[in-house]
């Protein structure tokens, strides 16, 4: 029999996904330890996470960032070079992550080295000394890296966009400027460190091939020191209803492309419209087969890529459409984006397209739970944003439930005419 290649094979939809469960232990001093034990490779990731991100340094923008980055630049017993050498010798990789909400120390390594690594990890967190010389060096490096970044249109466009969505004063809206970096001083960092890091409450996430022995180690190293009572309460910023609809153009004469960013302030994952908005976003620009990608890239060839995103954080969120396009087609691209939005506001998404979008989203979601690190990151979101523990167990059914009329409703409610901010870096 001749094979008919025009007919696609039968397929099955995914209706549920088994996410490895998380185990939580509270250490003697009250620190919660969360564990995901998955995988065959003898590796682990240890993350110690503090309420020490950008949210907490207002009005001294940059202090939280530099505190995190300086942790490994010297302790009472070890110089910056010795600390780097130490981790490298065990083939361990460190990250000193700084986000809008939280900051963290992350160590990846072979599980067998955990016992050797722990003393240094604890030393960095609790006995960092912030040598002036290293700080000067880091400030200098940061200033010059910033200069290079400011030459990248996409970098500038993202900065301008966030500033305009949240306002220049808002911790989600501000970004590190040269003057912020210059005014960073050691005393401010030490103060922030004492208030936010040293012996402060934290969460520990341990993932990979983990046995009782590793859990015991964490209990021994992290469970016995006294946790200080933080005397600073979580700062409450006035709720701004700031949501600009500006049209901003940053001219770059020599640019051959324009970076376009359009979008608006949106909401957190706990918002009742979250899943409906995810479906709208996916259809519009969330994947390779999206309408924007088909129109702007695959039909017109204006760009290498265009996408849209729902970006939720612990305290707020935004929606963004972004692309880098041939400069001459900047305005035409913006017009086409509005046309695609208009279509979603007036015509129901067809059953077949909706099926593709949903199946793709669900497949991508299920496929992103393959490693212990990916799984624990999902739990981090749940814990960091106070979501129900079954948030991701219900993810698939929540996506399945969204209907075409709801997508249309979302498009009208959130993307109505005049509600989007436009940023262009390059030219029109």
């Amino acid at each position, binding site marked *: 029999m001749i*094979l008919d*290649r025009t007919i*696609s*094979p*039968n*397929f*099955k*939809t*995914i209706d549920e*996904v088994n996410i490895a469960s998380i185990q939580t232990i509270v250490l003697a001093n009250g620190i919660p330890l969360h564990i995901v034990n998955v995988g065959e*490779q003898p*590796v682990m990731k240890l993350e110690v996470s503090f309420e020490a991100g950008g949210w907490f340094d207002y009005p001294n923008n940059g202090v939280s960032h530099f505190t995190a980055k300086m942790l490994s630049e010297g302790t009472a017993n070890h110089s*910056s*070079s010795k600390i*780097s*050498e130490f981790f*490298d*010798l*065990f*083939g*361990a*990789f460190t990250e000193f992550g700084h986000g809008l909400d939280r900051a963290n120390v992350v160590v*990846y390594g*072979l599980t067998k080295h955990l016992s050797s690594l722990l003393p240094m990890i604890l030393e960095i967190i609790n006995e960092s000394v912030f040598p002036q010389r290293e700080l000067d*060096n880091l400030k*200098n*490096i940061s200033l*010059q*890296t910033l200069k*290079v970044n*400011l*030459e*990248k*249109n996409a970098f500038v466009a993202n900065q301008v966009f966030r500033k305009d969505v949240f306002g220049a004063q808002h911790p989600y809206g501000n970004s590190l400027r040269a003057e912020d970096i210059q005014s960073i001083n050691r005393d401010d960092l030490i103060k922030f460190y004492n208030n936010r890091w040293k012996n402060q409450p934290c969460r520990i996430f341990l993932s990979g091939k983990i046995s009782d022995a590793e859990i015991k180690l964490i209990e021994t190293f992290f469970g016995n020191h006294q946790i200080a009572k933080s005397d600073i309460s979580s700062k409450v910023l006035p709720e701004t209803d700031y949501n600009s609809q500006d049209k901003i153009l940053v001219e770059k004469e020599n640019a*051959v*492309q324009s970076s376009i960013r359009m979008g608006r302030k949106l909401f957190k994952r706990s918002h009742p419209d979250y899943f409906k908005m995810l479906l709208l976003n996916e259809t519009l620009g969330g*994947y*390779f*087969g999206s309408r924007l990608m088909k129109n702007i*890239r*695959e039909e*017109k*060839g*204006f*760009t*290498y890529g265009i996408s849209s995103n729902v970006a939720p954080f612990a305290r707020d969120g935004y929606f963004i459409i972004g692309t*880098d396009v*041939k400069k001459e087609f900047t305005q035409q691209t913006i017009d086409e984006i509005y046309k695609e939005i208009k279509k979603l506001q007036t015509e129901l998404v067809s059953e077949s397209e909706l*099926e*593709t*979008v949903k*199946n*793709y989203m*669900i*497949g*991508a979601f299920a*496929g992103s739970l*393959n*490693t212990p*690190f990916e799984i624990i990151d999902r739990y981090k979101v749940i814990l960091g944003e106070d979501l129900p523990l079954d948030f991701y167990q219900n993810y698939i059914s929540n996506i399945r439930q969204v209907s075409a009329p709801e997508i249309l409703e979302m498009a009208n409610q959130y993307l109505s005419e005049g509600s989007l901010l436009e940023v262009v870096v390059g030219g029109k």
Partner: protein
Amino acid sequence: MISYEHFVLNNGLKVYVHQDHSTPFAAVNIIYNVGSRDEDEQKTGFAHLFEHLMFGGSKNIPSYDTPLQKVGGENNAFTSPDITNYYITLPAVNLETAFWLESDRMMSLSFDPRVLEVQQKVVIEEFKQRYLNQPYGDVWLKLRPLAYKNHPYKWATIGKEISHIENATLDDVRNFFYTHYLPNNAIMVVAGNVTLEQVKQLSKKWFEPIPAGKTKARNLPKEPVQTEARFLETEAKVPLNALYKAYHMPGRHEEHFHAHDFLSDILGRSKSSRFYNKLIKEQHLFNSVNAYVTSSLDPGLLIIQGNLNQGVSIAEGDAAVQDVLDEILLNPVQEEELLKVKNQAESTLVFSEVELLNRAMNMAFAANSGNIDLVNQESAKIQAVTVEEVAEVAKNVLRKDNCSTLYYQAVN
């Protein structure tokens, strides 16, 4: 350790199967043994442009992406100087969809002129976005022809110039397809929640009807030994001066590759490297500095690159780099220094095997280089390197007459 089974179809397609029943997913990775090194010098950038066309519909399937998205799958591809690689991850229950899609485009593309026209534009925008509209984006467009005089590594995979992409014709596309996109010029790895029997049955059903073709023996011009130092100065509107140095070294599977790799790691992989300590921490000359190897299949390059601090001349930075290089020849690498980079390499290797798709790719690369067993020999090769070997390769490779130096001057 990655376990695998192997069979070959009648048309020469080599298939490798890696079973992992702990995941509900499968990965299908197809590598075609063609890269930008196989291009005509007057038609560069073609292998990569062609990769884009592979998504523009095949003979019996008008859209490649939509049917895959419909069954919950994801895919992508990349082109390098050596190979072109296509990969899919999807729920293992829908494995057959991957076979249907991949076999149809291996059999024949749609050769739709409209697809070529649009993808030419898309690739030109990619060229601009990555290589022209970025600070230092054009470095490799300049460094490659400086370091390579004969071998096709002298042009970048994106292409030598935009006009080459603009001038591509449908005849070029057809020729390229029937020369290189043959079952006997490809390797398929199927990994995840699959069985050998299932993969055999699906491979026979979907791939075996594709006729084998005549492969051309690869006969690339060899790069002659460099005998004098090369130098190029260029300028652009960037904030900081930058220095690039490229030294010829062996290819990925040639003798002493790992010793060269470790030499570059010791010089400039991480914050405890010699460059970082000397040039950033002690002397405050550089803002960033790294050393790494290109890992190409034919003889590659050991690269040193760094951005200088404001007010530091490139010549001053270059001299300081040279001092560190002289130092490593005088005071060879110590056991502990080597142990450190070995441990980093070992750890990187183990982490690279956490993801199913990465395991599939590692297997495909090894098989494409002629020996699948290489995928499980990395660890032994890492451990076999000695300080004496590193000292020896340092002496051979870090010679001024083996070096191409690029000064990238910042202008306002």
